[in-house]
């Protein structure tokens, strides 16, 4: 499933990260790599972004990007 479908306050392992080259690079820079465990902290209202946590860093991700991250 994609990160978008992950329930709130649940952990999951990143399987793959898709999307544009620039976005992929930005995610790597923030420490998101396939194999990492991340937690979905919360979602914003109005179809807003998701807040995820990975190794102590919280990152806000837009829905378009979250849809391209596969987790399990």
């Amino acid at each position, binding site marked *: 499933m994609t990160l978008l479908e992950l329930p709130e306050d649940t952990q999951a392992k990143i399987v793959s990260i898709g*999307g*544009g*080259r*620039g*976005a*992929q*690079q*930005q*995610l*790597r*820079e*923030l*420490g998101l*790599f*396939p194999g990492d465990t991340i937690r979905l*902290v*919360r*979602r*914003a*209202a*109005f*179809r*807003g*972004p998701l*807040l995820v946590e990975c*190794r*102590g*860093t*919280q*990152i*806000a*991700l*837009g*829905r*378009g*990007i979250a849809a391209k991250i596969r987790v399990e």
Partner: protein
Amino acid sequence: MRIALVGQPNCGKSTLFNQVAGYKALTANFPGTTVTYTLSRVSLGREVVELVDLPGTYSLAGANPAESVAQSFLLERGVDVVINVVDASLLARSLDLTLELLDLGLPIVLALNMMDEAQRKGITIDRAQLSAALGVPVVPLIARKGIGVRELFATARQAARQSARPASIHFSRDVENALTQIAAVLDQSLSLPPRLAAIKLLEGNAAMRERARAGAPLALTQAERFASELVASRGRPADAVIASERHAVALNLFEATATVARAGAADWRDRMDDVLLHPVGGYAALLLILFLFFQFVYGVGRLVEEPMLTLFDGIVARLAVALGETTLAFELANGVVSGIAGGIAIVLPYLVPFLLGLSLLEDIGYLPRVAFLVDGLMHRLGLHGKAVIPFILGYGCNVPAVMATRILEEPRDRVIAATLATMVPCAARLTVVFGLAAFYLGPVAALGIYTLNLIVVALTGAILTRLMPEATPGLILEMPVYRLPTLQTMLAKSYYRVREFVVVAWPILIVGSIVLSLLEFLQLDRWVNLLLAPLTGLLGLPQAVGTTLIFGVLRKELALAMLRQALNTTDVATVLSAGQMLTFTVFIVFYIPCLATLAALYRELGRRQTLGVAALTTGLAIAIALVVRGALWVVGIQ
């Protein structure tokens, strides 16, 4: 000796810089506060060194213009030693950049900043082991409190003198093989460490490819060949392969040198987001915070403005008696006093509380939360939430707001965000809104103008994004932990920003007032006003306000500060009706950005865009002022 501070965004480089150089670099708790470098000469012991505060960069890839600044400075500006500042509480992630820096071939000192925060998170770091593994000195630091600063710089100077070059990390065999072969072809042809250049070429770094195209075309073809080989064998692009391997090394290094105890009990920091980012409560909190902020600025400003104006009016009245009301001497003295009064009585009472409040919100770390809350709404404008940071900065001053658009990756997003940022009512315009509309008509008038402004900015944004359609990749923004700001930093920062008004704007205001006095004495103001009569007539304003519109282009606060003098009254309400005040304020809020903002726009976007923005805002200002005038007429407000 030149020392460069390098590190990921929001790790405290500027805080460290300010500890040593005095408050010269703006700091705040959100990633991307510094978008250009600040250089300062500081004396350390008996030696004077050049200290450079570089924009935060997650890697040396240069994803946005702010990051490219850091990258090219490191490669080209003869840095003697790099201080790699890392947020120790985020060490695992920060080591990726540290490992990348090793290839620069420069002496490096690792500064583990925010040790107190790391401790709170239960992270213990074995410094000796980390230092041995990396081959660089490691110094603990709490820059905010100035702890460890002295030792850090002593270590950095020593490292520079010994010019110790740390060893770089090893990638897997196929990558190493490619790097060796590219580096062999490169040799010194790019006047960079060959291994560094080889890595960048293999990653497909745009800037490095450009360099190689001219200086080492053979290496470029080599790199392209190896890159496609890697894609074939690993199934991923070369930059992803390299980054993943580096990341794996970083993680191993972290696990070998740091231990993470079970985190302590959740404290206020962890609970605050439950309220402030709540799907319903978050927006209520946002509105409440904005309302309180607004009330604070209005309350303080009004408390000071009234008695101050009375005081200065008394002085002018006495001068009129002493010097004679129609003499040149009185006109000049009146100009000087009006200029000083404009600063003390009208601008500063609103500016100071506003800047204090803004500092508080910035340093606590609330701004990225606002970006999170409004991202969904911003998408309907075709921008993502990160673009909200330039907007919020715009409420302080449009110049840093325009510069802050450098944190956006897409050129098209930068154009739209910069254009919209110039329409955000800055602190100078705030003084007009509060000092005129709110002061005479009550806080509701100010609230109305701000709401109107938000709507116009949103509509303009929606139209601009339709004109330049392109899918934005979406928001990727680090959410920093809340930090309790120190009073000292807040005061230093507010002072730093107020000084900009005192040093730059106030002299212009005083000279402007004297010029206006002279114009009035020589009866030349009439011609200026006559020239602008078609505009002022159209807006239903007295001709005499014409000159203030001209001065308002220099600095927006001048428009109001000089209004009393231009109208020749101590009580604007006796000359201007409520409707005229509102029309005037709305026009001032929207028309042409001030000179400093135009200059910043010119630097960021070029001449065509700048002229475009000037034309757009003036057109908008006239249209909106007319609509407001019409609407007021309909509801019966003259």
